[in-house]
């Protein structure tokens, strides 16, 4: 017995090594990028791209993100409400479920390819902010739906029952009880969706970005400059040396990581705050 116990310790230590590898990789990437922080200046963030800064790219990325969230948020939340509160379990729901999983697993390059063929060419939106919004929204949708579903399922059943017993209609219950109670979870899922698409390159490659233009788009039908796209074109097409694009890489990394960490932290916080689950 003693022997097996000490073996066990060895085993579990060995089992810990892969986890350590994962964490090391994460910290390595972070440290590698942070060593580049010396090469960038703070005014890079506020000077225009015409003066060699990143201003339009950062704000352009924000435009893309907010627009995509504006499309995927409502659609995703409505879809999730339907799936959890209204739908009866049946064949259609199983198919929808399957479709959401498949959409979540679709490679972003295919979504970009579809976005180009459908939004840019078929709908005639061209290379524009709007095409980018719709394409990115398609990527966010599964994340928002799943996150919202989870949040709604966490709302205790007796909350809803109480509302229904008071004579509220189904929609009123959803509107005034279910959604407000699930709101933190919904917002978290949208944040996580934004983190997923913030650094996305393949999906906006053909749909909404240009290398250089003046200023920010004045309407949704104009193209936009974005961090990820510029980084890609500068490295792959223009062959610029890595030290010249270190600033873009670092800022993109920080942007995505901050979105993701806020989202993840909020999710853990709200999962723990709901004691009825445990």
């Amino acid at each position, binding site marked *: 017995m003693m022997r097996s116990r000490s073996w066990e310790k060895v085993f579990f230590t060995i089992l810990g090594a892969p986890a350590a590898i994962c964490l090391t990789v994460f910290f390595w990437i972070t440290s590698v990028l942070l060593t580049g922080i010396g090469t960038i200046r703070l005014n890079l963030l506020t000077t225009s791209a015409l003066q060699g800064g990143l201003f339009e790219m950062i704000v352009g990325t924000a435009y893309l993100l907010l627009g995509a969230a504006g499309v995927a948020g409502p659609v995703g939340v409505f879809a999730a409400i339907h799936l959890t509160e209204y739908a009866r379990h049946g064949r259609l729901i199983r198919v929808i479920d399957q479709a959401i999983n498949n959409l979540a697993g679709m490679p972003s390059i295919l979504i970009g390819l579809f976005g180009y063929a459908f939004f840019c060419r078929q709908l005639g939106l061209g290379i524009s902010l709007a095409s980018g919004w719709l394409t990115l929204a398609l990527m966010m949708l599964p994340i928002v739906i799943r996150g919202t579903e989870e949040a709604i399922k966490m709302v205790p059943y007796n909350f809803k029952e109480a509302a229904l017993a008071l004579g509220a209609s189904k929609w009123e219950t959803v509107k005034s009880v279910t959604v407000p109670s699930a709101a933190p979870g919904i917002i978290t899922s949208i944040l996580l969706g934004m983190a997923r698409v913030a650094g996305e390159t393949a999906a906006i490659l053909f749909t909404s970005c240009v290398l*250089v*233009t003046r200023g920010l788009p004045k309407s949704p039908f104009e193209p936009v400059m974005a961090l990820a796209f510029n980084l890609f074109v500068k490295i792959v097409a*223009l062959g610029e*040396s890595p030290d010249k694009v270190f600033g873009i890489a670092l800022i993109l990394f920080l942007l995505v990581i901050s979105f993701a960490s*806020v989202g993840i932290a909020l999710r853990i916080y709200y999962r723990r705050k709901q004691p009825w689950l445990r």
Partner: protein
Amino acid sequence: MVRKANKGLSKLVAIAGMVSLLIIGLVVGYYINAITQQKSNTNYPQEFGEDIAWRTSSITLSGSTTVLPIANACAVAFMNKHPGITITVQGGGSGVGYSNVIDGVVDLGMASREPKTSEIDGAKSKGVDLWLHPIALDAVCVVVHPSVANSSYPLSLTLQEVGKIFAGIYKYWDEVKPGLPHKEIVVVVREPGSGTRGTFEEYTMHPWKYNVTARASVQPSNPAVKNKVETTPYSIGYIGFSFISEKMHVVALAKEAGKPHVYPTVNSIAKGEYPISRYMYLVTNGQPKSGSLADRFIDFVRSKEGQQIVEANGFLKLPYVYPTS
């Protein structure tokens, strides 16, 4: 015990979330401030009675990735010079450049080759008249380390011989030409996707369906190749004309055996005698209206200032001088 620890942690996490939200908020505020400041900067002095319509217009360019660095740098310089105008530069390829001009999607196409017959036919059927405006020359020079050849023992090769070296068919220098050292050839190339590599392979590799040897050292930029060839004995590489230095030997090239071997010089490149050279074009539908933005932009690229940008990007300026805009 465990739950207590959790409470502490979740508090910590919540605080971390709040702090990062605060930072995001600050950044957003800073930006909104910056946007408003930028807007007030766009007031430019009105110049005399000249037609000012072009000063507030915008054009879009798309096409060849080889021309992209020139177009990008020129667009930035031009926009800095004229605060009212907008030039949008998209990527693509020469094919996209031509087809977009034919379809009327963009004002200016970028191309690093002449149109194919199919493209000319397509343009004709749509009533489009393709005009090519040369803006730069691209010459790729083959260079070797002085340990292989120097000015007293020069090296001249045909395009196919160059192809064989880069394909790894010749492994030692004395296989190429008797009298060269019996040393293994160190092949230095650019990364796939590079415009310089594209031009080079189009002339030396593609006609014979050669592929670059797997032993080739891949470098990310012209200066990197220059550095590698300068420092590596028995190496061979290729670079844009403006990157040639004294610490390397330039190889004279012939189109095929029997034809004269030509050194890359400004003169021989401009006359088209040097075999690995081509023009870079901006493409328009018909002659651009004089004084229009497209016309002025083409003039700018061909002006002294524009040609300096061309040279800074590793291309050759045009052999003739255009009046400055």
